[in-house]
């Protein structure tokens, strides 16, 4: 018989609000402690020390409005956060500072997370939903200069962008953007031309989350439906459906492929985290710990594969930390 699913390795309590986003920073050498950033509904960003399992710092920069995206820029001293106050903040956390060094006023009322891509040392591209409902804007950071604005053709009726993923085939090559829209379709954008390259209707409902494997040029998306959609990008840069996978319960709020591209984790509205093998989307485990919707899942970037962790944040105010399939 199959083994029962594991319990969480530990649980982080104390955000006192629903957790909307998580981001690990564990790539540093000793004596750097591994860190987990969490953004919650009450506007705080908590910096968790994964050695002590305690909060080191709580950052308050979004006027107590929900924080729904946190990313590090390079190392753990530079942080990007996005909140419902329509601002994206850039933080300087070096030497114990907790200062917002710069911010971008997005003027967007949705909750589409921004996407960050390192294009050179100290230079990043950031895609975010823009003020106009259907548009996506790409900025260069830290200069904040606008690279392009991606407008769907008139009459495309895609709706709002729901999730974004900036990527490039190899470092130095042309960056591309994958965007999931309100009408259920995923669009591949060429940034330099500002034109869509391919469009694929993956879902009947808004795309809630997507992730993309640039090595295998294969992506996965989830919506409020009972189905996961896996699609691939062929040589002609056309998106096509690879397969679909039916779920027991409807609703996916987040999808993440582990950096080693072996497994995928999904955050479910049914309170459960699901693990699949990335190769064939073979179901591997259902982690049932939370008592409310799981909002986000994130994998750690530990150098040693055996230490790699999975974190999930939920509406029940808790963050569960799992160690799963670390032997591969």
């Amino acid at each position, binding site marked *: *018989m*199959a*083994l*029962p*699913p*594991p319990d969480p390795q530990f649980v982080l309590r104390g955000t006192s609000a629903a957790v909307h986003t998580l981001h690990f920073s564990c790539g540093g050498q000793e004596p750097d402690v591994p860190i987990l950033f969490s953004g919650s509904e009450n506007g705080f960003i908590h910096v968790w020390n994964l050695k002590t399992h305690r909060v080191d710092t709580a950052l308050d920069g979004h006027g107590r409005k929900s924080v729904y995206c946190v990313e590090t820029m390079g190392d753990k001293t530079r942080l990007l956060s996005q909140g419902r106050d329509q601002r994206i903040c850039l933080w300087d956390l070096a030497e114990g500072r907790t200062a917002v060094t710069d911010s971008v006023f997005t003027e967007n009322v949705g909750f589409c997370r921004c996407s960050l891509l390192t294009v050179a040392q100290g230079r990043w591209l950031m895609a975010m939903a823009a003020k106009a409902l259907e548009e996506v804007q790409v900025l260069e950071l830290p200069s904040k200069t606008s690279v392009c604005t991606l407008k769907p053709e008139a009459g495309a009726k895609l709706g709002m962008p729901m999730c974004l993923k900036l990527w490039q085939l190899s470092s130095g090559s042309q960056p591309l953007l994958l965007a999931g829209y309100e009408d259920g379709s995923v669009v591949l954008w060429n940034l330099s031309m500002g034109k869509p390259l391919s469009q694929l209707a993956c879902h009947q409902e808004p795309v809630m989350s997507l992730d993309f494997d640039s090595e295998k040029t294969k992506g996965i998306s989830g919506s409020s439906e009972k189905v996961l959609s896996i699609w691939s990008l062929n040589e002609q840069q056309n998106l096509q459906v690879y397969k679909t996978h039916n779920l*027991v*319960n409807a609703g996916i709020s987040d999808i993440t492929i582990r950096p080693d591209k*072996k*497994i995928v984790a999904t955050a479910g509205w*049914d*309170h*459960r985290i699901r693990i699949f*093998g990335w*190769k*064939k989307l*073979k*179901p*591997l*485990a*259902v982690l*049932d710990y939370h*008592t409310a919707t799981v909002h986000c899942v994130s994998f750690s970037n530990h150098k040693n594969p055996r230490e790699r962790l999975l974190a999930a944040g939920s509406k029940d105010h808790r963050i569960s930390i799992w160690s799963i*399939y670390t032997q*591969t």
Partner: protein
Amino acid sequence: SAMAAPELERALREAAAGPERAGEAAAVALGAVRAALAAAGGAAALSERERALFGAFLRSLARAPRAARPEGVWQRCFLEGLPAPALCVLLEALGCPRLHPKEVAEVLEQFLQEGRMSALLWEVCQQPAQAGSPELQEALLNRIVCLPDYVSNKLEGKNPPVFFPQNYFPLLGGAIIQVLQKISDSLRGGLDCSISFVSHVLGKVCIHGRQKEILGILLPRLMDLTKSDCIWQRICWRLVECVPDRWMEAVVLGFVQRAPGADVLSRVLGNLVVKNKKAQFVVTQKVLLLQYGHTTAVLQNLLGYLALDSLRRASLSSLLQVLQELLETWSSSSAVKHSPPEQQQYISKAILICLSHLKKTEIESCRQELLTSMMEGVKCHLDSSLPQIRRLGMIVAESISAKINTDGPVLKYSALLLPSPNFPSQDFVPCVSRARWETTAEVILCHSVQAARTNSCLHFTYSDDDLIPYDMSEDKEVKIKAPVYIRDCIEALTGSEDMDKWEATIKALESLVRKNPEATREVSVELAKILLHLEEKTCIEGFVELRQRAQVAVLTTDPIPVAKYLTSQFYSLNYSLRQRMDILDVLVLAAQELSYPKSHGKTKHSGGPKPCIQLLPGSDSSKDWRRIVDERIKSKTRRFSQMELASGANEFNSVAGHFFFPLIQHFDRPLTTFDLLGEDHFVLGRLVHTLAVLMYLAVNTVAVAAMGKALLEFVWALRFHTDLYVRQGLLSCISSLLISVPAERLLEDMTEELLETQSWLGDVVEKDPDGDCRRLALQNLLFMENLKKKLQTAPS
């Protein structure tokens, strides 16, 4: 004949004059009579004078001493001469001291066996005038038809089998057939003869209740003979037409009941309904509208017969006319209210059969009338408190509608409202579903074991990546977690927009209430109020039952305040009938639960029969089935230990009055929206039944005597209610009262009322149109008698 006459006359005179002659002389005299009779050319040729002489001769023979009656000869005189006087004299002789009854019986038996009866009938048919005056014919008719009774009386039961009715009347039937045959022959020969005496015999036999015996012989023969022969058909029609009016009903009914089909009936009866007023009344009125015990086959025969002939269709007794009269009864609200359900079913059947026989043109001609009666009828049927009446109304209305609207829209009731009559009883369902569940569970188990095996094999032989899945069998569809506190439930049920939570709450509420009695008591009335007003927001399976169980749980947890609230709401403004009936149901269920003994403080909810108010009185075969199985198990099982009977305080004792009195107080005060004594008699019926159950459950409580007295007054006030369901409830009230109130208190405190009730019950037994009411009343009367007897025998 003229030549022989003087000789016969002389011989008869001689034989009749010398009764004292004995031996040889007597034999010679009798021989002379026989010879003269033969020479005269048989009995038929005799003149009236000779007939009278012959009668006198037979009479003297019967009175003669044994020596004057040479054995073997005197019997022949009775069998060869005129059959009518022979029969009369023989029957008279049964009482005569000279002749032994046994001897007479033997001759009579021979008389029957040798076919003298048909000779007798034929003689009367041939010369009706000669057979004597109408009085004489009447006397003869009496003798023929009453022969079995007469013989049996005289022989004091020692009569030979041939005189038993079941043997005699078929014999008579055979005789009639022979006579009819002769009549047919003589008609073909151009001779006229009268059939009326045979009709009289048939009529009288039928009115004596011997249709089965006589028609059992007659009808099959007549069916055969009339098939293709028009003379036989005319004979047959005449035979029925000549039956006197006073016997017509018995004959017509006999034929209608026994005919195998409408075509046969049409052949045998002809246009009787058109020619004969009495027959018309019987066929179109009495059988259809006044009686209701006949089988469906009879109805089909009768209406088919009316439909078969164009003359009949055109006449006053036409099918259309019949249908209109049937519909008039069907759509009369008074008939629906007062006639027994069986009769209504009968009339509905007749209507459906009529509809099937009607032609399109005939329907066209009366479409408007049909529509009007349908609308009226369906209204008063749907008003009825008995489900089977409502169902009948819907079925008939659907059929009429389908007939009159061949192209337009047709009335159609939802299948939910029209369950098939053999709908399996609820009791049976759990058994079936449990069995099915067990097998499916097994199947699933096998499958999962197999799946696990194949999975592990796969892992060893072929593995695309080396990730071993964990057990995912727990990954099932999410059920929303229900609240765990009573106060959360209140919030979820009232404020919440979250339908999943609302559903989960209503499902969990009962067990939550039972687990937290203290917390429930803090908010019991509020909770009862919410539940009473709770509407089904989403489509949950068994919502009504879930809500009801929660209501019962709240009421049993905190009986007095909640009962006070519910009973006050029963008579309040602005409730739907459904809510008022919910209140009654909840009170009954809670009372039952409270009055049941509990073991170790735990209540059994699931087991035990549910005290549903019985809507449909009648036999419940599945219950019988269960009882039989239980008894068998009991008889084949040996128990080594005594079953311990649960015991505990009767919790209903202290609260019975709170359930009962508020309900009984205000029934006669109509509100603007709720009038128990008027329109809303269905709720009144439920109220009455509820009171009966509460009374029954209040046995051994302190308040029972006071409750009984109040209930008697209540019943007295409503005893003439027109609604059947209400009256049944009242009679149940009396039963409960007699069971629950101790006999001493009954007879001491309520003597007057009981006497009144007793006389009312007597009236019900005699006059109530409903069978169940009569039965209940009779039961109550017997019960009263037994109580009285018990008190008298008990040492005071």
